[in-house]
């Protein structure tokens, strides 16, 4: 059983320099309250792992705008001119990762695999500097696991065990990142009593979740 914690207490867990995974796709399904509070707290030197940087102000946008991010692992920054500018100026070191590879690298860390063997990226710039493994004569690109100190997870509903439900296109990276953060903080829209979420509807078992963010009001 988990006590829900305040936004203040949740943010206090995350120090400068931490690596932080943030769910969401173009801002949909992003943990907005945690992101905004983290940016408002002026955290610096974060490693941000997220599918995309959305547009300024949305999704992880406030962390970019706030100058909180030193390193960014993502598949797309094309809709966020601030992220592009900070990359070109060298303020943020950016690793661009194909989206399917990104989600599998995160999953690999979460489920204890040594890496991901994929065709995606072979024969492109993505291959540069990486190990290639030959299996039955075919070449496969070896992509390494990505884990993080923290995973910030947006969920539709949560119970006090920490079981999470997601909805529609707000699933995206959330269920996968919930496996790969050393400390997982869930930001549910709603917290419900034990037994309300049926076992078959649970997509992230509560044992993966360390902290549940208290409701906004």
């Amino acid at each position, binding site marked *: 059983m988990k006590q829900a914690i305040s936004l203040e207490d949740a943010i206090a867990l995350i120090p400068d320099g931490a690596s932080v995974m943030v769910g969401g*796709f*173009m*801002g*949909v*399904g992003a943990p907005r309250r945690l992101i905004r509070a983290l940016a408002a707290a002026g955290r610096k030197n974060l490693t941000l792992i997220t*599918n*995309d940087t*959305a*547009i300024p102000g949305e999704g992880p946008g406030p962390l970019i705008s706030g100058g909180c991010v030193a390193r960014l692992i*993502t*598949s*797309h*920054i*094309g*809709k966020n001119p601030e992220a*592009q500018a900070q*990359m*070109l100026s060298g303020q943020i070191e*950016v690793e*661009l990762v*194909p*989206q*399917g*590879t990104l*989600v*599998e690298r995160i*999953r690999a860390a979460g489920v204890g695999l040594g890496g991901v063997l*994929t*065709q*995606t*990226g*072979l*024969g*492109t*710039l*993505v291959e540069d500097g990486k190990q290639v493994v030959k299996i039955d004569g075919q070449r496969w690109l070896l992509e390494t696991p990505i884990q993080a100190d923290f995973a910030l997870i947006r969920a*539709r509903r949560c119970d006090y065990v920490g079981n999470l439900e*997601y*909805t*529609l*296109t*707000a*699933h*995206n*990276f*959330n*269920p*996968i990142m919930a496996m790969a953060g050393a400390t997982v903080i869930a930001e549910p829209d709603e917290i419900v009593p034990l037994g309300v979420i049926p076992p078959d509807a649970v*997509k992230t078992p509560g044992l993966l979740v360390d902290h549940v963010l208290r409701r906004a009001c």
Partner: protein
Amino acid sequence: MDAKELIARRVAQEIPAGAIVNLGIGLPSMVANYLPVDLGVFFQAENGVIGLGARPPEGMEDINLTDAGGGFVSAVPGAAAIDSAMSFGLIRGRHLDITVLGGMQVDARGRLANWMVPGQMVAGMGGAMDLVVGAKQVIVAMAHANKGVSKIVPDCTLPITAPRRVSLIVTELAVIRPEDDGLHLIETAPGVTVDDVRAATEADLIVTGDVPEMRM
């Protein structure tokens, strides 16, 4: 009919009944507008919905139901919501029939470049590399030229998205099929001649017999 509509309508002809289709953001997403509703095609958006439907009426949008560009959509009966691991598992595991993508360049070997211009525009590849590697068919839907410069080139000068040969290129001037021996011009747009296409195309085109006009 403007160029984009022409391209979208022509791409729509390539989509068979019951296909599972990913449409890229922008021009490719227009293809959905030109398919018969009873064709039983399911649209997949890589952000996690299979069975994507039209934008709902004003006031009926759900902030948790969008396409990969973040635009509001609906879900058809029989739709499924999935996470990114399943979404790209379907793409990379060859469970998707067709992807329609935009392009910056396609070269004589049928290789697509669509994710970055070194030193200038660095968007990131998003799901494009996975889609080109994993979809059973890859259709490139794009303008034939950019500011007068042909986008169909002998050899990509931009970083490629994947070494795979794409299935088909549809522009406002032509339909081109990359094969082992090069780029075959298989259709021209209404009112466009083979010579017009050749003149607008930096790469060599292979022409066999009469080239039919697109049937719109």
